């Protein structure tokens, strides 16, 4: 099989100020299924088209933001291999015991230079409510709310994006699909990384503060799903950031909004497919408006500066 090593974004653990409100948002608005609530208070959710047990973990806290993003790798051997390479690269690698999250096997964990915690794992239980495999219908459970298909990617903000680029490219085997650079110095301002056939699995933006979350994104079916999501956002008075619109980068169609704790979410559709032999696509900062919002052709302040 061609896709090896890191397979895909697996799950995120997000901090929320109020669990009851968060559940309404992620379950009833975005349309995730509530998988379980555990004794430590964490709530586990998944999208209807995901095979694995969960992809979104909510933890109640007096501060919003991201605890960690985890990627699924292809095997336990691959996990060991990454642990060795990360350690050799000077990263402090810790092990998270199997079962720290229900159904999830052993994880390895490291802090990236941008101050974000990333975990890797190879094993997670399959969901009972995943996509069907025997004469499969398009869905087993009826999609709800915005009909999120899967947790897709995160955009994270931090200082040393060159450092995080290095670990993802050189150790974890990611490729850069696209980036935004300063016109004069060539300094990377934004970076789109993929471990797969998708235009991005992780994005990074240079920012003065480390460890910040810009958004957690979910895939939806098509352009009309973005419109339907916009209807839900207005109908239920969800805090909207921008959209429906389209990105120049990745070419995805999108709408951004905030969860009840101020963490930004996105639902998006479309975008190109990436292959490792594709040339790098580069945007100059002077064209960044079009790169980010293809229709507006200008950035809004909120999109650039508001993070949790």
């Amino acid at each position, binding site marked *: 099989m061609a896709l090896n090593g890191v397979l895909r974004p697996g799950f995120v653990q997000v901090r929320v*100020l*109020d669990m009851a409100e968060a559940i309404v948002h992620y379950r009833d608005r975005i349309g995730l299924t509530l998988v379980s609530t555990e004794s430590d208070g964490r709530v586990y959710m998944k999208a209807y088209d995901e095979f694995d047990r969960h992809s979104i973990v909510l933890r109640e806290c*007096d*501060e*919003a*933001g991201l605890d960690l993003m985890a990627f699924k790798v292809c095997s336990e051997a691959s996990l060991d291999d990454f642990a060795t390479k990360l350690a050799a690269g000077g990263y402090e690698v810790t092990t998270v015991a199997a079962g720290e999250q229900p159904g999830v096997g052993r994880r390895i964990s490291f802090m990236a230079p941008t101050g974000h915690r990333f975990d890797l794992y190879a094993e997670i239980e399959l969901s009972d409510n995943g996509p069907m495999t025997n004469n499969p219908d398009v869905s087993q459970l009826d999609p709800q709310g915005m009909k999120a298909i899967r947790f897709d990617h995160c955009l994270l903000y931090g200082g040393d994006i060159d450092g995080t680029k290095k670990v993802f490219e050189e150790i974890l085997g990611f490729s850069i699909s696209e980036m935004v650079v300063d016109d004069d110095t060539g300094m990377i301002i934004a970076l789109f990384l993929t471990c797969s056939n998708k235009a991005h699995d992780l994005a990074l933006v240079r920012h003065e503060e480390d460890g910040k979350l810009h958004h957690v994104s979910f895939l939806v079916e098509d352009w009309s799903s973005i419109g339907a999501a916009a209807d839900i956002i207005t109908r239920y008075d969800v*805090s909207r950031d921008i959209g429906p619109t389209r990105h120049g980068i990745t070419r995805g169609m999108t709408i951004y909004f*905030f*969860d*009840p*704790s*101020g*963490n*930004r979410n996105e639902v998006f559709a479309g975008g190109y497919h990436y292959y490792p032999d594709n040339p790098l696509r580069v945007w100059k900062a002077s064209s960044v408006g079009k790169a980010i919002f293809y229709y507006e052709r200008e950035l809004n302040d*909120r999109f650039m*500066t*508001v*993070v*949790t």
Partner: protein
Amino acid sequence: MGKAAFRVSVEGSDKVITCLADETLLKAMARQGISNIPVGCRNGGCGVCKIRVTKGEYETGKMSIKHVTQVERDDGYALACKAFPKSDLTVTVKNEE
């Protein structure tokens, strides 16, 4: 509407925000097309709408402790998106950006 309405003055701005009894300061501001307090997530997480209330009574919903510490809360700091005026207020914008 007819509900109790409070008047909120923002220091350095001549636009007065009229706030209904169950409405956050930030929501009232936006509804009236005023923009003298910065708008971010609108949900207490990002800290962009940070203010200090220098006069008047208010209540708050859940706010990220990272942006308004307990000490600051006791000192009148709040997030406008989570502040419910309970009287006429005078506030100062505290966002550093």
